[in-house]
């Protein structure tokens, strides 16, 4: 057991890959009987401080349909200077540079510890990173002020040579020209009219002017280099200018009459931002950062009308098909997102408002392009301020934790095919021999584009075993998968990271216990959850739940040991023991339940769920609950109402919220002020301990979680109460464990506790 756990952990650390199954069933039939698909969570840019990039081009298999990268799994004939591709078995000559190769003089990519390796390659001109701020001006004065300050501050965080641009919008959209002295210049668009990229470029004067045919006037020096720079300028050049400009930014001056929402042209503003970058810097790393303080209320992409008396759509409206603007708006943003993705740019959405802001409609902008989505109550909160600041955080080696325009290619050995991927990516529609016809997630391709990613960005990739039952794999055969990620590093270098992994095949009939033991229930839970959430986007909620339940039942059927009609006889092996519990909380999670969540919130939660790595995803599925008491050191406790005790302090981390909850007694003590009394210093420490732990989490989490400090009976305690397993309710408060739980939950309850 321990070995598998270690193995899994090692693999994750080295390659950033977690498979649901670490020993693979060797035929299609058996694989399908395993219920949980063969799949993996891949964190393509997992931070590897110990991995020095190599400065040369990878060596590729010469077969045109393969092009796999030379890796430690390949068989090498040092004498003949040949290597055999482990995917297509093509024999390849080493390139001349490898002439000196020998058993003792191996290039890095052949060493087993370099199953993940990163190449720095020279391709095309290096363009600096681009940050285009798209700022809503229909904000309250305070909010705008706070936002302005954040933006001004961010200038100092940008790389000095980064290009920065500014678009502001309200009723109109202004594209600011940043290079003007003496007068600030902007191009203005009305917010009600959708414009094609061509129109936008024409209007901004970006289209290459047809060579003016003016006789007698000598043409000036070609203005080529100038073109793009009017709206996007290097930070170091226009630092002051832009700071002033931001400082002078006014609230949208158009009057908003009583009972109306301000007219906010988010849709067109985004469209212009996309068009601007599309025309100037296609296929280079760029972030469009949208800061909005309310729903789009006019033009294409409008989410709600400007009448305050008509509230923005709720889940109820959507179910009743009452959301007038939703379809159209969604379509608008989807089109934009796809265009952006095609250009390799990403869109961040920072939405801060008490009401919904239309994230539901706009989510695809961030989801398809790998952008961030941040939701807060106000720009004037530390939640936003710190989150925003954290976007520009630097990694261990002093590099920005962001990369752009990644192209992820997956290669598999013959027995496997690729069914699809789920994550912040779009399909590149590359068909190939290793692409399965059955799609899970975004399928039908072996390559995806991830326009923006950071070291945590994690994709779920699903495979299908295609080996026929009657064509057994030779003993000792291994299946291999290679992930090739080409991307633009934050230093603007082009890099390629190659990860090659291999797993053993096992015959499910004879070696089921191996397979069972090699089951990674955490990865499996996350992978299943991703599938479920992915389905939830397009299917009715109950259907998804039913599907999840059925999967769980089938899994238990397959791997559980029980006597028929005897619930108490049910046992699951250790490698499966947590899985049902995950599923239980998943069912209750905001990813699948929309009750009590606005559509925007659901979109927000799902967005993050689809991109975080395994650990964070698990936290999301099943929040962590720590208890602090005088009875011992802090300990994790069950996420159950029974864990709420008067003399405990609880710290709950749901990823999106961090809740510190003081038990009834503790709260009374605190009110009585014991913590201020020297003789009760230990109580003071007890109070402090969860705060410190929370701080630690807050330090690293992106986006900043909502930080809630509450106590027994406090209104905010609802955050905790809504998460815990309601084993104690008003019905069974005095008879706990008597099965007062909702029907299905009950089935798992015993098993979880058993675990």
């Amino acid at each position: 057991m321990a070995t598998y756990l270690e193995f899994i952990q090692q693999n994750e650390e080295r390659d950033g890959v977690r498979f649901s199954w670490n020993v693979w069933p060797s035929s299609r039939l058996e694989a399908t009987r395993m219920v949980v698909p063969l799949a993996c969570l891949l964190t393509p840019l997992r931070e590897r401080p110990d991995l020095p990039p190599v400065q040369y081009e990878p060596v590729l298999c010469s077969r045109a349909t393969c092009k796999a990268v030379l890796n430690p799994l390949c068989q090498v004939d040092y004498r003949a200077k040949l290597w055999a591709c482990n995917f297509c078995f093509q024999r390849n000559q080493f390139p001349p540079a490898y002439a000196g190769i020998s058993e003792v003089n191996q290039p890095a990519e052949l060493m087993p510890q370099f199953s993940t390796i990163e190449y720095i390659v020279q391709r095309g001109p290096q363009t600096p990173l681009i940050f285009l701020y798209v700022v809503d001006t229909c904000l309250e004065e305070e909010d705008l002020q706070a936002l302005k300050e954040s933006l001004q501050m961010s200038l100092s965080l940008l790389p000095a040579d980064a290009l920065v641009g500014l678009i502001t919008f309200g009723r109109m959209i202004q594209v600011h020209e940043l290079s003007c002295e003496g007068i600030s210049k902007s191009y203005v668009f009305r917010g009600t009219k959708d414009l094609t990229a061509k129109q936008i470029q024409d209007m901004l004067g970006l289209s290459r002017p047809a060579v003016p045919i003016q006789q007698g006037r000598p043409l000036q020096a070609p203005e080529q280099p100038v073109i793009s720079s009017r709206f996007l300028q290097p930070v170091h050049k226009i630092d002051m200018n832009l700071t002033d400009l931001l400082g002078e930014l006014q609230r949208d001056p158009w009057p908003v009459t009583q009972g109306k929402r301000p007219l906010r042209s988010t849709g067109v503003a985004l469209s212009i931002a996309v068009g601007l970058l599309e025309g100037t810097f296609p296929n280079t790393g760029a972030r469009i950062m949208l800061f909005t303080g309310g729903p789009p209320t006019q033009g294409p992409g409008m989410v709600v009308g400007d009448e305050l008396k008509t509230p923005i759509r709720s889940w109820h409206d959507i179910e009743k098909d009452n959301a007038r603007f939703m379809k159209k708006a969604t379509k608008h943003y989807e089109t934009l997102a796809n265009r952006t993705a095609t250009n390799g740019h990403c869109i961040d959405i920072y939405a801060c408002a008490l009401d919904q802001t239309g994230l539901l409609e706009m989510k695809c902008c961030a989801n398809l392009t790998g952008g961030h989505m941040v939701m807060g109550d106000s720009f004037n909160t530390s939640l936003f301020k710190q989150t925003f600041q954290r976007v520009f955080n630097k990694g261990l080696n002093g590099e920005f934790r962001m990369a752009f325009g990644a192209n992820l290619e997956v290669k598999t050995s013959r027995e496997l095919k690729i069914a699809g991927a789920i994550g912040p990516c779009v399909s590149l529609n590359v068909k190939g021999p290793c692409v399965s016809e059955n799609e899970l997630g975004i399928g039908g391709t072996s390559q995806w584009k991830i326009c923006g990613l950071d070291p945590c960005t994690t994709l779920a990739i699903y495979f299908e075993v295609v080996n026929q039952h009657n064509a057994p794999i030779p003993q000792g055969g291994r299946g291999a998968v290679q992930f090739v990620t080409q991307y633009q590093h934050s230093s603007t270098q082009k890099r390629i990271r190659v990860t090659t992994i291999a797993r053993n095949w096992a015959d499910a009939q004879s070696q089921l216990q191996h397979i069972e033991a090699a089951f990674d229930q955490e990865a499996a839970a996350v992978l299943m959850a991703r599938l479920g959430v992915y389905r939830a986007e397009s299917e009715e909620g109950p259907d998804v739940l039913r599907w999840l339940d059925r999967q769980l039942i089938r899994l238990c059927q397959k791997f559980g040991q029980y006597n028929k009609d005897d619930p108490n006889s049910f046992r699951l092996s250790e490698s499966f023991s947590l899985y049902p519990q995950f599923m239980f909380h998943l069912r209750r999670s905001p990813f699948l339940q929309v009750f009590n969540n606005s559509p925007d919130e659901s979109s927000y939660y799902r967005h993050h769920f689809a991109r975080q790595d395994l650990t964070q995803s698990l936290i999301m599925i099943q929040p962590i609950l720590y208890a602090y008491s005088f009875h011992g050191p802090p300990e994790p406790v069950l996420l159950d109402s029974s864990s709420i005790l008067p003399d405990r302090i609880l710290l709950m981390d749901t990823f999106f919220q961090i809740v510190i909850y003081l038990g009834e007694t503790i709260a009374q003590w605190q009110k009585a002020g014991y913590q201020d009394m020297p003789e009760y210093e230990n109580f003071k420490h007890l109070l402090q301990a969860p705060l410190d732990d929370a701080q630690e989490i807050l330090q690293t989490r992106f986006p900043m979680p909502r930080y809630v400090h509450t106590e027994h009976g406090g209104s905010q305690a609802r955050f905790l109460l809504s998460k815990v397993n309601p084993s104690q309710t008003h019905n069974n408060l005095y008879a706990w464990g008597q099965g007062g739980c909702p029907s299905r939950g009950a089935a798992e309850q015993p098993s979880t506790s058993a675990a």
Partner: protein
Amino acid sequence: MSVNQHTHAGPPYGQPQPGYQGYQQPAYGGQPLPGVPHTQYGAYNGPMPGYQQPVPPQGSVRALPTSGAPPPASGTSLPSGHQGYSQFGQGDVQNGIPTSTAPMQRPPASQPFLPGSAPAPVSQPSTFQQYGPPPSSVQQLSNHMAGMTIGSTSISAPPPAGLGYGPPTSVPPVSGSFSATGSGLYAPYTASQGPPPPSVPQGLPLAQPPFSGQPVPTQRLPTEVPGFAPPPSSTGIGPSSYPPSTGPHPGPPMSGLHGPPPPTHPPQPGYQMQQNGSFGQVRGPQPNYSGAYPGTPNYGSQPGPPPKRLDPDSIPSPQLNELPPQQKPRHRIDPDAIPSPIQVIEDDRSNRGSEPFVTGVRGQVPPLVTTNFLVEDQGNASPRYIRCTSYNIPCTSDMAKQSQVPLAAVIKPLATLPPEETLPYLVDHGESGPVRCNRCKAYMCPFMQFIEGGRRFQCCFCSCVTEVPAHYFQHLDHTGKRVDFYDRPELSLGSYEFLATVDYCKNNKFPSPPAFIFMIDVSYNAVKSGLVRLICEELKSILDYLPREGNMEESAIRVGFVTYNKVLHFYNVKSSLAQPQMMVVSDVADMFVPLLDGFLVNVNESRTVIASLLDQIPEMFADTRETETVFGPVIQAGLEALKAAECAGKLFIFHTSLPIAEAPGKLKNRDDKKLINTDKEKTLFQPQTSFYSNLAKDCVAQGCCVDLFLFPNQYLDVATLGVVTYQTGGSIYKYAYFQLETDQDRFLNDLRRDVQKEVGFDAVMRVRTSTGIRATDFFGAFYMSNTTDVEMAGLDCDKTITVEFKHDDKLSEDSGALLQCALLYTSCAGQRRLRIHNLSLNCCTQLADLYRNCETDTLINYLAKYAYRGVLNSPVKAVRDSLINQCAQILACYRKNCASPSSAGQLILPECMKLLPVYLNCVLKSDVLQPGPEVTTDDRAYIRQLVTSMDVAETNVFFYPRLLPLTKADVDSDSLPAAIRNSEERLSKGDIYLLENGLNIFVWVGVNVQQALIQNLFGVSSFSQISSTLSTLPVLENPFSKKVRSIIDMLHLQRSRYMKLIIVKQEDKLEMLFKHFLVEDKSLTGGASYVDFLCHMHKEIRQLLS
């Protein structure tokens, strides 16, 4: 005429009226004879031998003519001693061309008239009376055009006509000495009297008094004098003068006309007026005549013209001789004998310029626009506000139709008054608003009749009785007047203003102060020519002179700035900004205003930001290479800005080129000179798209007035670009081929004046009339959404609306006819006001009264506007024909109904309309109706729109430019030198002249001008060194230079636009342009000379009469 001869066409022409042919009828017809143009051009260009040749002789001739000419003439033609004179005309010809003699021979034919002529003299006495001058009097001018054919005509109308001209000689007999004055042709005038022979007996000799005046008069005086007394009946036109002579004046024949001698007229004035009527000369007759004689030199000048007419070829003359006499027709009408505008103007000036014009009396004809006079408002609006074509309206529509005299009023509601006159008082009737008639909603005015002790009043327009509101009640005195009559402007004055209440405001909200938006074309052309820099510089200072109301400290008007080429740039100049912000709107297809706050600002508050902006604009666009412009979106932008600010306002657009960039309102170059004189010519005046008309509607609805400054280097389709300007009550200024050095003064002065002048916004004007007539047609720069309300987004002090009235019922002589023009507008401070002008007119049952109370200048104003509108829908030729036709009918009606019976060969003009032919001719010759090859389509469209908003004074000088002999100016006095008539023959080579028409000032320098004068004026030593590119006269410290410059300055002050100064050296290229404005001469483009036209009119009239 000569033309005909050449062509020989004799025969071909023969068709219609041989006689007339002489007149170049073709020209009138509008179908130039092939030959005609030829000669004409030739003449001007100088190349034509014909022209040149004559010239040289001229010099000498001038001197000689008098002496030389006469002799021969007399010899040949005139039996009577006087003939000598008649020949005069001929004499000239002879100088130039022998042929002339031939015609001379004709005279005999005409002779028949002679007899008639004799009586003419009668009038003399009248001359004296004339002093009485009441203008109104109608006089008959019987011009005999040349004794012309007429002579024959009289006998047997048709054939002889041609000869007629020659015949004038016949006159001589009559006037004997007089005839001399008029050259042969003129004789007619004097002669005219002649014709009347028949009348004579009747005692109606002729109005000619003037002409015949002197010589005869003396003799007649006695008789006539008595006659005068009777004249009361003077109604009769000619009669007036005649009556005296005949004594029996009542002469039955006249009766028709006289019969009803309108008792109304105070006899004396009436008379006097009539007398005046007699060709202006009346007064001066004696002096003039005497002058004339000695002045022969003047005549000498005449030769000039004749030669032009003659074809060089004709010189040999053999052929001519062979020609049938008819073809030879020469109108040797003495130009001095035909009605002279100058004379009329001078007379009016001296007669009426000295005393204030008191408006208390109904139906008074005001002094001419050319006269300086003060107005005292005693219940009728000043003529500065309203002028009518006639101050005596026919009672019935039948009469009106018969006379064909259009009933129209030219209204200038916000006219500027001289400082001596008081502005209309502002009356506040409190919360309930102005007191108005319940039914027709007429505003309280002096003509309202208070009844029932003042508790009610009866409307003077619709007779409805309305309760007097309690707060307005006042007792009546014994005469029925309210006791507070003199305390209330609306009861005692013709013009006053009411403060409007909120009910009179759009959306029931008091308006915000208006805004001015400056919209500057920054395309390549504008930048390169320095225009952008110039405008920006100027704006800096001009903004301190925005119109203010009364004594407000600062103007309430806010300003905004836009620049544009293919896209628009708006500027945020909010005072709190450190630097201006520029906002580019490239979405021209769907214009909008990108900002609200900070676009329209108070000048004082944002002074520094504005200054900084104006400094930067030229820099920002210094390197622009954008040549395309948009136009429609520019107006839309301004409109939207005003909408957003919820105020009215004015756009000042500075534009340089045809808007060909892709945008709404995009235009294409559709200029096509080939269309001229075709049925499609009208399309050149029509907008090429309806886009701008629709836009104009929106602008009017918002109160967005558009002033357009154009700086074209090529065709930019003024007809289309001007649509919005025109319909919103704006002004167009056009500076073709703008060059900084030469045009900047003119442009800047125009701009300053345009920005500073008083202006009202969001105006609606309605003209109410007493029952019986109705305003039916409106001309001017405005928009009408219904048939009664004239809507103007902006209305400035120069804009004029001409309103035509038609009968829809009978009027009564007792109550007369009343007009009330009410203008609702927003003042420049944002106050909503009503300006009311009232005018009472007389009504008449006698046509003679109508003719006696007409005003030709106003009539021309109306006719010109009517015609200029006509070209939009009809071929130009049709328009001209209908103009001629209408005038012929007017005159014929007079002749038929009011003039004493006389020979048909006599041209008899009503005194008040004696200038109608000459002015009409000017209208017909104007660029719009008869363009020369050098007149661009844009110019025509520009002029067309310009004229449509002109007031009477402007049309007057525009069509008949003022020609001042500078060298005759009295250096020591403030006065202008006496103007002279617009004919080349009046120019002396030794003098310098100034000609102005409201748009241009020409300074014409003769070749023989003394060097000292040239030195004094131009600062160069010789004629050849004068630069004709000067746009201003150099400032030199000598009396002559000062005088001339002060004259020019004075002229500038009188005109609403800064005129372009053009120096023309005699025999220089530019002289051709100059000659275009000598409107009494035949024009290059085929326009008739005055004399020719007069003959033509006469012919038309005769046709109508027969």
